[in-house]
């Protein structure tokens, strides 16, 4: 789960990381009020789960409360499009209004888990303000690393070495050492998979300040963090993905026309790949779980057919222990109940597979059976293509759905 910048900064501040003074506004008037309270120059920053906000027009400086109000009016309600957002962008619902800082240097500081080393690693770089992946690709020598002890964490000497490596000295080196250990403590306490301050700035008057912050939380640790529910912003998630997660389904929305329903994550990815190989485009990743119960199949169908782009569905279930007649029963019941009209191709493997196929064939519904994945993919791509050519709603190209019109007061 990703957090907003203002949430990350509030959490980091609790660990002693210095952050600029600021508050969140949902209206231009509120933004003006915050700017008035802060006094002086401020920065108005769109709060969305995506980087690259500055270049996209989602971050604006303001010299007065009036300018802050005008900036907030521009940003609130806009669809921010950055390289990290979906093509249609993300609707901005909140802005962070912060005091502006005079910046002398921009640094990078982050903690993540090194998979190969099975331990957290602290990374620091004097190339702050750009994506760390770009630095890693172009100038790997500019990234300093300190591997944390899995149980003991990061020691002060390691943090000091990073600080000196960044060219900090005197009081600044001391502050950076404290800040690094604070960031590490936050990473562990909140079960983060990424805790990143980018840029970490040295101000003109010689202080360290976390100008931007990003925390990503390990979803597997949710059970021991009852407070995470309040941090989740479902507006930042695709509605269908929110719905899927309520049913315990692993669903990721993509852009194609072939919906897929598969048991197992690896097989689900391979199914998407083979659809592409057959000349189609997968509409989604969907793992219904090992058991593929009738209830999960119904939930999955409901989500797949809610995606208007889906022209045909491929069900690929490797049952093993699972009985294919039961599976067929579940599929038939779901298709009848939800009145699924689009063609459905089913490839299943397991006990009683012939009986299952016969049940599908005799159901009178729009099913096509396939014996293996490759055949299933070819069939479903052909059917999706045919649907594309004949479907009435495809005659006139539909405008891409951009979500609800903005309604927040004062956003126009």
């Amino acid at each position, binding site marked *: 789960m990703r957090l907003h910048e203002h949430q990350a900064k509030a959490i980091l501040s609790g660990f002693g990381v210095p952050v600029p003074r600021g508050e969140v506004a949902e209206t231009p008037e509120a933004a003006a009020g915050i700017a008035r309270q802060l006094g002086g120059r401020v920065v108005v920053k769109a709060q969305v789960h995506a980087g690259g906000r500055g270049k996209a027009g989602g971050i604006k400086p303001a010299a007065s409360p009036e300018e802050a109000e005008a900036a907030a009016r521009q940003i609130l309600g806009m669809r921010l499009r950055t390289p*990290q957002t979906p093509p249609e962008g993300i609707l901005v619902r909140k802005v962070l209004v912060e005091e502006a800082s005079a910046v002398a240097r921009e640094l990078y500081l982050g903690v993540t*888990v090194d*998979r*190969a080393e*099975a*331990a*957290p690693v602290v990374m620091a770089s004097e190339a702050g303000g750009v*994506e*760390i*992946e770009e630095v*890693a*690709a172009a100038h790997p020598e500019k990234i300093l690393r300190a591997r944390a*002890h*899995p*149980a003991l964490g990061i020691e002060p000497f390691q943090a000091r070495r990073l600080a000196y490596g960044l060219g900090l000295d005197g009081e600044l080196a001391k502050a950076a050492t404290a800040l690094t250990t604070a960031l590490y403590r936050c990473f*562990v306490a909140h*079960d983060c*998979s990424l805790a990143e301050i980018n840029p970490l700035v040295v101000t003109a008057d010689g202080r360290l300040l976390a100008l931007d912050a990003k925390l990503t939380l*390990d*979803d*597997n*640790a949710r*059970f*021991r963090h009852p407070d995470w529910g309040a941090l989740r912003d479902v507006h930042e998630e695709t509605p269908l993905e929110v719905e899927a997660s309520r049913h315990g389904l*692993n669903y*990721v929305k*993509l852009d194609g026309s072939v919906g897929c329903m*598969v*048991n*197992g*994550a*690896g*097989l*689900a*990815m*391979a199914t*998407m*790949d*083979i*659809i*592409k*190989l057959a000349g189609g485009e*997968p509409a989604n*990743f969907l*793992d219904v779980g*090992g058991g593929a119960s009738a209830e999960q199949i119904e939930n999955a169908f409901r989500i797949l057919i809610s995606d208007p782009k889906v022209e045909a569905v491929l069900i690929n279930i*490797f*049952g*093993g*222990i699972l009985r294919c007649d039961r599976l067929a029963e579940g599929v038939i019941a779901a298709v009848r109940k939800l009145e699924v009209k689009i063609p459905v191709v089913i490839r299943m*493997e*397991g006990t009683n597979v012939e009986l299952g196929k016969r049940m599908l064939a005799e159901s009178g519904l729009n099913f096509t059976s396939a014996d*293996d*994945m*490759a055949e299933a993919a070819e069939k479903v791509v052909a059917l999706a293509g045919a649907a594309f050519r004949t479907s009435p709603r495809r005659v006139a190209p539909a405008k891409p759905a951009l979500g609800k019109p903005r309604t927040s007061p004062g956003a126009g």
Partner: protein
Amino acid sequence: MSILVGRETRVVVQGITGREGSFHAQRCREYGTQVVAGVTPGKGGTVHEGIPVFDTVAEAFAKEGANTALIFVPPAAAADAIMEAADAGIELIVCITEGIPTLDMVRARAFLAGRRSRLIGPNCPGLISPGQAKFGIMPGHIHRPGPVGVISRSGTLTYEAVHHLTRRGIGQSTCVGIGGDPIIGTSFVDCLRLFAEDPGTAAVVLIGEIGGTAEEEAAEYIAHGLAKPVVGFVAGLTAPPGRRMGHAGAIIAGGRGTAQEKMEALTRAGVAVVRSPAEIGASVARLLGRP
């Protein structure tokens, strides 16, 4: 022949009185596995479906001579279960549990360092030496004994590959699901080393997916002297960057860990990389000179 497990392996099932643990302990026993004990704290002294239950792994080790642990403990307690098994002196720990927090696995891996236990998983289907015994949740009947070793980060995708092999009459020595999490106990390279030394294994199927660098490390090892032929498949060519594809470890982060990179690395190392799991059987047959 096989690696890691066989007929003589004596397994203790941790979480045996839970729904999954109970169900799969029975399926393993039906396949021929020696399920000698179960562990559920608080239920020691009872007997579950004919299997003696203990409060601790140490007792199961001392009284029943268990040398392998199969873990079905829920995510919140699973890392603890791994460490308990290691502390009891269990040689091979197979953790099926999905959803363990990454930092719990950091602790568990640190605990295992310097001990003799090997961990398989977590978030894996387990492993099977066909015709001998199985330790996990895979359907036993799709396998048959033979000369091909299988290593995979995925469950049902492995069954798919095994199914294609078996349908062509090609059996398997051992199939190992190493798990879909970012931090796991045994890597592709560890398994390749074991298969390299196993006289019963003539070829290896390696099934990877997006995320991490395990496939690249496997490619490096293969290029530097694995004498046996390898067929590879990597899932996730169409996966979008930055999104977790079901498995906690299946994510393209910062543009790294793509299926394309992994396929290229494996191809450079001499692996026969196939574009679809349906081609795995034919590719192995070709390498083994079979019809």
